[in-house]
């Protein structure tokens, strides 16, 4: 019973997001550039 229960858990759980999502976040982070000028905050994306 215990074994069946743990198998069931494995099938229905979702433990990690896919590498594509992580790669997107890393690319997003690399491209995002935040800066401030005279009390104004700007956000831009650099290639």
């Amino acid at each position, binding site marked *: 019973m215990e074994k069946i229960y743990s198998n069931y858990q494995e099938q229905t*759980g*979702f*433990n*990690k*997001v*896919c590498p594509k*999502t*992580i790669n*997107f*976040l*890393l690319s*997003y*982070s*690399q491209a*995002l*550039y*935040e800066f401030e000028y005279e009390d104004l*905050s700007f*956000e831009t994306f650099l290639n």
Partner: protein
Amino acid sequence: MDLPNLKPLKKVTRMKLQIEDSELVRDYISGNESALEVLINRHNQRITSFIYSKVLDRDITEDIFQDTFIKVIKTLKKGKYSEEGKFLPWVMRISHNLIIDHFRRNKRMPMFEGSDEFNIFSVIGDDKLNAEKQLIKNQIDTDLRQLVEELPDDQKEVLLMRIYKDMSFKEISENTGVSINTALGRMRYALINLRKIIDKNNIVLTN
């Protein structure tokens, strides 16, 4: 020969196996992008499991996870994060708020999932005209105004009041000083004459 006075080796009691979150956050803020990768991979499982346990949908979990880290990245890059040694609880709090936002949004706009046999968009649609239909409608309106100009003045007057000013025939009769029946008759002739002009010139007025 005397041996040099060597200090006894210190026993390492606690080995630091991994860099602390706070140190990685500091590294990331100072420009080390790879620190973010370590942070994401380190907490991927806990955050993903937490989100999935609430929303029970893989795609939505991916979306909320992504939005969570977008907020994290923005906050860190803006320098608005205050380090209190609580990186993971902070990230969990962000994802928790996004989960609440997700449910609120879904309550306001329940999502309908269609099937192969039935597509909801075949029943309902956006009542706004698309760009092409709007252009055609504008063209028809312009053509129609030109046709109305061809009508005799008394018929044109009644038609404009009725169609464009949305006046009742009682109001039209009061404004033009004719009886309601005369106004009705002028409207009728206006429409007959418009149809004649349209037929004569083979004009197509459909959208």
